[in-house]
Every structure is written in C-alpha cells, then in structure tokens.
C-alpha cells in the first residue's frame, strides 16, 4: 500500500524535524541552561562534573548527535531538576492529561455539534443572532480567566466542586484504575474539563453550522421535505448525519492539539498533567523534560492527524480515491 508507506515516511520526517527544532530551541534560549542545576556554591570542578554529566560541555553538533542517538534508543535523558528518567515522569502524568482532554472534547463536541446544527436550522432567527456571538466570545475568552470564574462560582461560591488537584488530600486507592474510576477523581476532573470544553466547543459549533448550511441546500433535504417528514427528523436523521463528516477530522486533530494546549487549564486547576509538567520544565530550564514532553505531544498530534486521514477515507471513499 504505497499511500500508507508514504504517509508513514512523512510522519517520520515530521517527527525528526520537530526533534531538531526542539533541540535548537532550547539551546538558543537566553540564559545559561546550566544555571538551573548548578548551584552558585558549587566549586568549579563540581560545575564541570555536572556539565559533563549532562553532555553540556561538548560542542553543539556533538550534543545534537548524542541527542538523536538517545532518542532512537528511546532514551530521553535524566531530568535536570528531578534527576530521574524523563520518560517515566511524562508517562506518569500522561493518563491524567489524556482523560482530561478526552472528557473535555466529548463534552465540547456533543454540545457543539448540537448547537451548530440548531444554529444552522434556525438560520436568520433570534437564536442564531444570540448564539453565534456567544460562541465566538467563549472561544475568544482567555482560558485562565474562564477557569478562575469557574473556580469562583462552583468551588469558592457554591462549594459544589473541589478547587484543585486530582484527589482529596491523602486519598489512597488500591490501584491507578481504582483511582481514575473513583467519584473523587471525577469530581476533581469536572471543573478543568468543563473549562476546557467551554473553550473547545466553539470550533465544532461553527464547523457544524456551516457544514449543515451546505447540506441543507442539497436535494435530498428538499426531497425529505416534499415527502412531508417532520422538521426534527429531517434535521437529525438526514441533514445532521451528513454534515458530521468534517467534525471527525476536527475531533482527531483537536485531540492532538489539546494534549499540548492544556498548559493553562492544568495550571489553574493544579491538575497533575503533561501541560503542567511542561510549564514547570520550561520555567526551570529543564531541557530533557521539556524536550520529552514536546516530542510526546508532537507524536500524539502526528498520530491523530494520520488517524483522521484514515478515518476520512473510510467514511468518504471519494477522498481515498482522489489520492490515487
């Protein structure tokens, strides 16, 4: 299957490019990278030892080769700050981020799709006049601000939901699964997931709206009307189903993007995820950790992109043919 092979090669190239950019980005930032893990009280010998330990005393091209070699062996190095293998640190928090993203996307797409379909169906009415600007506003509002408002209302005001973390203090579970499936975890997940969903719903809503508007002009809708089917049936059974296609891609891509874009929400709600880890890594010039997090995000993004392409081909055979 030449198409599949070509796509896989493309993916490999993209990942290599990302790895290279990530490598250079961190070396070219202002400030001495070693400042983060060399205490000023170290003797010169100690400082040199630390530099040697992390390969920072070699010239840049050599550092690059060491780096690529390590990546190919699945070695992402030791965290400058925690001195532990970064891969383990990233994998520890990854489930939290994936769950947060998935929950938020499901809420956002379920709600956004419905809202979009309604906006298209009620084209020109008061509903559309109110909802379109509202959707745009929520999409444009800073996540940080939305998060703080959610905290102020649901946590500090009404006291319904906890205000940070992934569990109540000191909670103990028999296994990771027990923890993730507990009501406690779900309650902690609610506010960050809702905040993220408020931000994410704009895209599916607007996409669905324009897609619906297109479909509504198609002959089969007119046909359904002529047959005398009720409006609701036409909207849900016929028009909406056909308008869903572009949303599949958007969902897959949104998932990839969101995994990397959760930095703000995870910090507002102290959610122990990849975004928070990444933010801390950057603040502390913890290069190996930030590199690993970036690469993982890139990997998820590229994989989701690939998956979207495949899904698209399955759902609409014309697309696959078109590629030859």
């Amino acid at each position, binding site marked *: 299957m030449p198409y599949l092979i070509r796509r896989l090669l493309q993916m490999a190239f993209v990942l290599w490019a990302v790895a290279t950019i990530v490598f250079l980005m961190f070396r070219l930032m*202002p*400030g*001495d990278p070693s*400042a*983060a893990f060399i*205490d*000023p*009280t*170290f003797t*010169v010998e*100690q400082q040199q*030892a630390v530099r*040697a*330990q992390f390969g920072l005393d070699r010239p840049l091209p050599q550092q690059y080769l060491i780096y690529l070699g390590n990546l190919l062996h699945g070695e992402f190095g*030791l965290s400058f*700050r*925690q*001195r*532990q293998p970064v891969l383990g*640190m990233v994998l*520890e*928090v990854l489930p939290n981020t994936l769950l947060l993203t998935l929950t938020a996307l499901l809420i956002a797409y379920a709600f956004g799709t419905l809202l979009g379909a309604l906006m298209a169906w009620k084209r020109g009415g008061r509903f559309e006049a109110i909802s379109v600007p509202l959707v745009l506003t929520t999409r444009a509002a800073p996540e940080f601000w939305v998060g*703080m408002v959610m*905290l102020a209302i649901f*946590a*500090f005001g009404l*006291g319904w939901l*906890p*205000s*940070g*973390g*992934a*569990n*109540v*203090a*000191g909670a*103990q579970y028999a296994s990771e699964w027990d923890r993730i499936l507990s009501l406690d975890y779900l309650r902690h997940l609610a506010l960050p997931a809702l905040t993220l969903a408020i931000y994410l719903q704009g895209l599916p809503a607007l996409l669905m709206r324009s897609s619906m508007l297109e479909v509504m002009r198609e002959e089969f809708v007119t046909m359904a009307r002529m047959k005398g089917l009720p409006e609701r049936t036409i909207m849900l059974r016929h028009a909406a189903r056909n308008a869903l296609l572009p949303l599949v891609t958007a969902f897959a891509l949104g998932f990839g993007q969101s995994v990397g874009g959760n930095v703000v929400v*995870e*910090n*507002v*709600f*102290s959610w*122990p995820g990849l975004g*928070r*880890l990444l*933010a*801390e890594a950057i603040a502390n*010039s913890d290069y190996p950790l930030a590199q690993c997090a970036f690469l993982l995000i890139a990997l998820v993004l590229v994989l989701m992109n690939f998956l979207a392409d495949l899904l698209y081909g399955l759902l609409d055979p014309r697309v696959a043919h078109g590629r030859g």
Partner: protein
Amino acid sequence: MTATTLSRRALLASSALSLLPALTPRLAMAATPGDKIRKLTLLSAAQASDPQEFQAAQLIAQSWRQLGLDVDVRGLPRPQLSDVVWNNRTKWDMTMWRMVGRPERSDPDEFTFNLYNPATIETGYNFIAYNNPDFQKIAQAQRAETDREARRKLLYEAQDVINRDQPYLFLVYPKNVLAYDQSVWKPESVVEQSGIGIRCFWTFLRAEPAGAKRDMICNAAESMIAINPLYISGAIDSWVTELVWDRLMRVGPDGLPQPWAAEKVTQVDPTTIDVVLRAGQKWHDGKPVTVEDVVFSFEAPATSDKSPMYKPFVGNIASVKATDDRTVRFVLKTPSAAFTTSTLAKINLVPKHVWAPILKGLEGKPENAETVQEEQPVGSGPFKVARFKLNEEIVLEANPDYWEKPKMDRWILRIITNTGAALGMLPRGELNFLTDYRGDPKLLTDMAKQNPNISVVATTDMGFRFVAPNERRQPFDDARFRRALSLAINRQLMAAAAWNGFATPANSFVSPALPYWSKPGINDLKADMSEAKKLLEEAGYVVVRGKLHYPEGVKETLDAS
C-alpha cells in the same frame, strides 16, 4: 578576559580605593570637574516575575536621579539575570539581588564569611568584587571564636565595617506571610521559628489538633524535586527531608542550635566535640540507630564524592569516630563556631545498612547519590513517608516510635500551582495550613478578615534584598559614592509601597530575625538626600548643569551601555 587579569583588576581597584581618601580632599578644593558619569543601568528581575523588586528598583532610580545621575532600570527574566550577573562579571553596573533565609543561615557565619570573601570574587558569592582585608580578618576571627560573647563582639564590628563601606546597598528584610486554620490547629501549638516563620519543623512536630481533624494539609506552589537525604534539592524538599531524617542538633525556635537526636553536645576543646546519642532511637524499618550510622552519615559526604552538595558542610571535619556505643567524637581541622549549626544541625542521619550498598553500587559510575530516589525512604525522624508523587502529593505519617511523637496523624503536602486557588482552598478546608504563598500579602490578610478562623503570621526573613554595585567598575569602587547612593534611598517608603508593608528596612547582612547577632540600631539608616549630596560634594563629585560629574581628573572609562 582571563580570570587572572580579572582578579588583578579587582586588586588594582581595591588598592585605588584605599588611596582615594588621601587624595580627594585636595581634589574637592579644585573646581574643575572630571568627566560626566555615564548613564548607569540598574538590573532587576522582570516586573512580571518579581513586581516588588522591580518597583523598588524604580523608586531607587528616581531618588538617584535627584543626585544628578542618569539611571536606567532594566528588567530581565531571572535565568538571564543570573547569567549576566554570575557569568559576565565585568559587564554590568548594578543589580537588584537577594539572599534567601535557610535554617543553616541561622548562624551568621555563612553570610559573614562567604559574601565578601576575596577568594570568591571570580566565580563565587562575592560577585560584586568587594575586597577589604580588614573585614576578612574579622570574618575569619569570628568563625574560629567559640566563645559566644566574644564572637558577638566581632560580628558587631563586622556589621560596622559593612555599614561604613556599603559594599551592598541593603534595602529590606522581607516578611514571609503564611496562614493556617485555627479551628483545626490550636494557635498556641503553632511555633514561629525566628527568621523562618510558622512553616517550620517545630510547628509540624508540635501542632495540636483543635478538633477531630488530625491531618495537616499543606501546599507547595511547585513540584518537589526529590526526597533524598544526600541531596540539597530545593526549599520545598527540605521541609520533607527534615521531617523524615533526623539530625544530631536542630536550630531551635530562637534561631540557636540545640541538641536533638544527640542527648548532649560537648565542646571538649576548640577543635574537639563529643556527641552523645539519645538512647533507643529506631530507623523507620525497625532497626536501631547506632553510632556507626552516625559516623557513616558524616563520612559518606566527605569521602565518597557521591554527595557533592553536602560535602562543603563536612569539609572541616578531620576525623569522626565512635568512642563507645553512644558517643561520637568529632575532631575539626580548624576551630569553628558555626559547626553546630552548619554541620551538626545540617547533616541528615542516614542508615548505613541502606546507603552503604547504594553508594558502593555507584562507585565508578558518573551518577552520584543525588540521582537515587528510594521507593521507600528510611529515616529516623518524627515522620515516615507513606507515599509520594513528586508532581502531585506527598503523604507522611507520624512515626509512633519517635521519642517525641507528633500530635498530628498525617502531614500531607499538595502541589497547588495556582496561588489564587490555594488562597481559596484554605477557608474551604481543602488546605488547613498555607505553607507556600507567593501572592500579594494584602490579599491574604483581607481574606483572613472575612474568615475569623484563618490566622495570618508575618515573619521577618533571615534573607534580604539589596542593590549590588559592581565594584570592578567606577564609580562604584568609591565607598563614599556608594554611601551617598545608599543615603538617597528611602527604605521606609520602599517597604510600605513596594512590599505593601510586609518588609523591614535593612542595612546589615545579619537580619533582626537573628536577634542575638544583629547589632542594635544598625538598621536605622534614614534616607537623607541633603546628606547624600553633601557626601558627594566632599568626595569631589560635582554637579554641572544638573548632571553629576566625577572628581577632577577622573576620566570615564566605560561606554554608556
């Protein structure tokens, strides 16, 4: 520029400094001014990362402009600021800087000996290149003086020298503001350690539950780095390590060291100290704490090279030996007054049966003990590690076998990255002890006014903020110029405006948080613009058309940058 030329320059600068007083009166007589002083740049942390420091820098620049100086404030991100100041030591004029409080700094030796030490001009603490042999003589003498009264006299003298020379322009001792829920913790059982505050070993050991809640729930604004007794990894980590691993001595609430896991500490002669171990202590795995463990704890950092950060703290030990099954004798290379605080109250006691095999396994490898994270840490302190996720939560349990059992059941540290959220969590009981607060202190006191259960405690820090003038560059090599600049600064205003009142004016490297060592009255330096101008005039500086010029014959050697 090579390191040697750099130090030669520093020496030249200092010798020029000692000549100046003899020369200047004659210069002041003559009316012809020297070159105009270039535009001076005051570096500071960026406004976003440290609004208080940045605002203080602005206030300082304003008052110096009144002296006829052109002053620019330049805010930089912290890593970049550190890079410039530490690694490019000839390239800057002045910087805002800070020294932070740590329990071992309860002894004034570290600041006294290190900050102005000529040996650290090139790569260490003395980044301003202050070089005064008289001061260094006193600094050397105080660390060898084991008579406390006599040592205090020396430290008063040292503070006087620094006050006269103004190598740093001290600004304020900030106050740390923390809070707790007094419906959960009895206020009389919460201990305020001098210079450290209520977030201290003594509170965690002795805080008594007021009601049914027996878990202390604390917060930290960033992830922990490690739980490792041989690695000085970070401030937050040290809260945990000092609860899990015990120490022979502890710095008490009064800031003075007291025997702890040691029953008795005796100074036999200036270089010999006998320590008698408290009987019946146990490691968290049930094995007894022995004198061999104690010897190992002090020998491991010194001999193995695998605990580089602790190595300096045991560097003065010539030998450490068990003399019977409860006594350990330390012999020092040179007499050291600070030994009890900076070594006996600093080094964690670690079990030999756990760490000897680990260190052996590391032999010949590039990694050291700092990369080791035990799955189940074993100490002999008042708390045991129940479980931990460094990025999320650390749970400690009271050690029932400890000779002073903690009053609480568990000590829980949550990583809460959002300061605003942490503030909101306190009255809701999601936290009951705010151990890390980096926001505006006023928000916290306002919140406490609405919640009578919340008690706020502000503690003057051992650390301080200051302007560091680069004495490698003129005009900062002139002590009278520095003193004039210092007199122009209104510290009262600064503490009130930039720090919202949560700071005390400073003029010494010994904080009033160390009442025994701080010289009374030293911090009463009042802002006096006319005195500052008079001082400059006496030193020969001349104001021409509103701009300050060097004394006659002095050329500006640096480009304005």
